[in-house]
């Protein structure tokens, strides 16, 4: 019985982490139709930025802990803005209108570059900034000891998810965005400044990526390759949910999170490919993903 609660709790926690990781990816794809392979690198950059800054803060003198959390968010925001603007203004905007799959390959090249760039900046030694994670302590849920930090992650991803949804569905800007999603040309004709929208969205997506990294950093040891490891994971979630849909990403994350937690508890031997199994299954039944739209071609 306990393990059933455990599955639900672990599933929820893992799902919320997955959603944090996948949100940026799906926002960017939804508006710009770019499946951004470099998203994993954004995640890693956020993690490195936070880990190095927070680590430095706690290793030199003992300030109040909450400053550490502010630093995490601050570093993620700064890194996201910088990297996002640099890449969108400096590279991607010259590539718009190219074939979707080609864009994937472009971002793949970006990933290769960023991976080494990070090695140059932060070296290969792991960064270990555990204080924000440890400081929160733990609580007991249904007889299971859970880290409060993980519970906080659940809250954060709920907030972010809801905010994104509100923004897209309830604000004027969101309407503009959806106009762009549905038809770039028409939006342009309606006088929407698509380029500005793109810049905005890409930077937003990047910040979401770095934020996910920064929030994960205190719980892990930040080492080379963490970015590469999560890309495929995020892809799977987004594809399952239907690329470009926030609700989809949320549902996909929940699906993957729960099935993985269940696998870990009841059938550890399937854990490794349960994610791809779910993805292949969903795609086989609904090629466009759970929330994806099919566009019939007019002739």
């Amino acid at each position: 019985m306990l393990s059933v609660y455990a599955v639900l709790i672990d599933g929820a926690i893992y799902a919320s982490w997955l959603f944090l990781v996948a949100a940026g990816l799906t926002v960017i794809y939804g508006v710009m139709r770019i499946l951004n392979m470099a998203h994993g690198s954004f995640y890693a950059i956020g993690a490195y930025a936070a880990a190095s800054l927070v680590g430095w803060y706690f290793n030199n003198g003992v300030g109040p802990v909450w400053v550490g959390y502010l630093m995490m968010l601050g570093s993620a925001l700064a890194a996201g803005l910088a990297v996002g603007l640099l890449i969108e203004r400096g590279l991607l905007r010259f590539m718009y209108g190219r074939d979707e799959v080609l864009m994937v390959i472009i971002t793949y090249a970006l990933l290769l570059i960023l991976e080494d760039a990070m090695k140059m900046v932060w070296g290969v030694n792991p960064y270990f900034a555990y204080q924000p994670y440890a400081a929160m302590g733990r609580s007991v849920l249904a007889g299971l000891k859970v880290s409060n930090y993980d519970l906080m992650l659940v809250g954060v991803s709920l907030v972010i998810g809801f905010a994104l949804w509100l923004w897209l569905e309830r604000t004027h800007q969101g309407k503009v965005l959806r106009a762009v999603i549905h038809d770039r040309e028409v939006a342009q004709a309606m006088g929407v400044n698509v380029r500005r929208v793109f810049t905005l969205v890409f930077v937003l997506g990047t910040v979401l990526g770095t934020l996910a990294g920064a929030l994960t950093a205190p719980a892990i040891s930040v080492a080379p390759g963490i970015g590469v490891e999560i890309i495929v994971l995020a892809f799977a979630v987004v594809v399952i949910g239907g690329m470009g849909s926030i609700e989809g990403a949320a549902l996909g994350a929940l699906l993957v999170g729960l099935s993985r937690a269940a696998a870990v508890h009841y059938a550890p031997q399937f854990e490794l490919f349960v994610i791809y199994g779910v993805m292949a299954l969903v795609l086989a039944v609904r090629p466009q993903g759970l929330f994806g739209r099919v566009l019939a071609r007019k002739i």
Partner: protein
Amino acid sequence: MCLDKTELMMLGVGVVLATSGLVAPQWLVFLLTMALAKSLVVQGVVMQMRAGLVTFGQGLYFCIGGYAVGMSGHFLTISDLPTLLLIGVASAVALAMILGLLMTRYREIFFAMLSLAFSMILYGMLVKSPGLGSTDGFNVIAWTLFGWSPATGQAPLALFVIIIAVSAVLAVLLHRYGHSSAGAMCEAIRENEVRVEYLGQSPRWVLYMNYVAAAGVSALGGGFMALAAGHIDPEMAYWITSGEFVFIALLGGTSHVAAPILAAILFAVVRTYAIELVPHSWQMILGITLLAIIVFLPKGLWSLLSGQARRAKAVEAKA
């Protein structure tokens, strides 16, 4: 069958390379062997690119080919090279005939992602199989050819000659396929599937056939890789490996069967020296190269050659 000039040329290049193997240093012979093995996989990727499909999971068939060879050597103690390779190709084709039924329903990004998913599932299964050495993989037994087993140190050169022969023949076949009705139909599907349907053709059938064929070709590459390296591991099915194949495909371009071979060799040479000279940032070099190719040579390195060729033609015309 009469060969046209291009095909004769390709066979010629093959002969030249093979003979140069006799004088070239062994490390180079080995490097070229590996490159050619990869180029076979890339041929499979290119075949699908011509039909407008980019696969991020060709490592699946690369790996199947390699493991089929390794396992039939290990468990069935088959050492005859042609038999091993045939088993590899056969198993890949068999799998492709099943997966193809599903894959041909997908296009663009979905095809890419689903192919990736399948190869990652294989990766997961292999990692979960201690019997097959899990991530360590296992060593492939020494091969023989119709009962003849090469003396120690001779195997790499022998394999080099064999793979050149195979690639050359395959290049000729693929060249013909590229110019055949079916090959043209693939490009037509890439350009406008609805019209193909209204020509009384079944795009899915053409793609299916193309998918299965590509799987077979790639498996051949996997088999050769296993025999050359003497070792196989699940890394072959990892998505990064598949990404590398896409990389090489774009590097060469899809306009000519020799392009993947050229690209694979270039890639191998560049990477070897990059790792040596800048061991800490060779990925970055690859990334920048890839961007440069996409921006400046969207049709791949081959467009350089063709460009030159056209200029040559022009000069000829003037003269």
